[in-house]
């Protein structure tokens, strides 16, 4: 492994069975980046939620519209950007899934999960149309340039929970 930034992009048609391609790619990259098992799992889920939203709400299952998932693996940060070609939306206008009135809703929890599992999530309307979701997760900096990616310490060597802010009741 070199220590240059690595950029990988996947483009898929708007079909549910293709979401697995994005999550499997995420798994390979997060393993390559040295994230621990829990982080790999939760980042996978953030990718699934964001790509599912792009397919379902963004592109509305229109198979002629694509979803682009870009992974940027930098020294200290993994950034994942998901772009669709839908009408976009205003995330500030969404109902709060933790409001007691909404607790029993059948949907509306995906973005909350993304925000919980990733260190940062931003929503932008892309200037050329569609929505651009950008999610970032800090990684443990690589120990020494002499070490290969395989020997990198896990991102959370203390083995603690990787969820940033799970509310414990």
């Amino acid at each position: 492994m070199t220590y240059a930034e690595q950029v990988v992009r996947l483009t898929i048609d708007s079909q549910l069975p293709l979401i697995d391609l994005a999550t499997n790619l995420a798994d390979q990259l997060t393993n390559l980046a040295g994230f621990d098992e829990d982080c790999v799992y939760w980042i996978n889920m953030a990718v699934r939620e964001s790509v599912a939203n792009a397919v379902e709400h963004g592109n509305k299952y229109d198979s002629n519209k694509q979803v682009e998932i870009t992974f940027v693996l930098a020294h200290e940060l993994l950034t994942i950007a998901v772009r669709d070609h839908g009408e976009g939306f205003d995330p500030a206008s969404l109902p709060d899934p933790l409001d007691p009135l909404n607790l029993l809703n059948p949907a509306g929890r995906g973005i909350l999960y993304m925000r919980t599992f990733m260190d940062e999530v931003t929503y932008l309307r892309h200037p050329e149309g569609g929505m651009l979701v950008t999610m970032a997760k800090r990684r443990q900096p690589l120990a020494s340039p002499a070490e290969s990616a395989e020997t990198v310490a896990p991102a959370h060597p203390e083995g603690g929970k990787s969820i940033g802010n799970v509310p414990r009741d």
Partner: protein
Amino acid sequence: MSLEINQRSSQGVSLVDLAGKITLGQGSIQLRDTVAHLLAEGNTRIVLNLAGVQYVDSSGIGELVSRHMTTRHAGGRLVLLHLPPKIRDLLQITKLLSLFEVYEEEAAALASFLG
């Protein structure tokens, strides 16, 4: 199939063993149909055994909530057995854990219906 579903019954209670993924699309739909079928046949005492479920997305979590409510509205009860830690986390994050009765032993889940 991403979700495998096996049904058993014991002491008048329907046990649904789930294995695989409950995610947007196929998995969520299969779970919905299974519970609808049980309720239509008058089986309103339901144990969902999640021991074999490795992955649930937000659609799947919503599906668990909806199946719980549908069963309650039908005058029945749906309880969870063998809740994997990651799915427990997901329910906790969305303040749903207290909604569900959760059992670690099949016998205890069955006994809960004999009260």
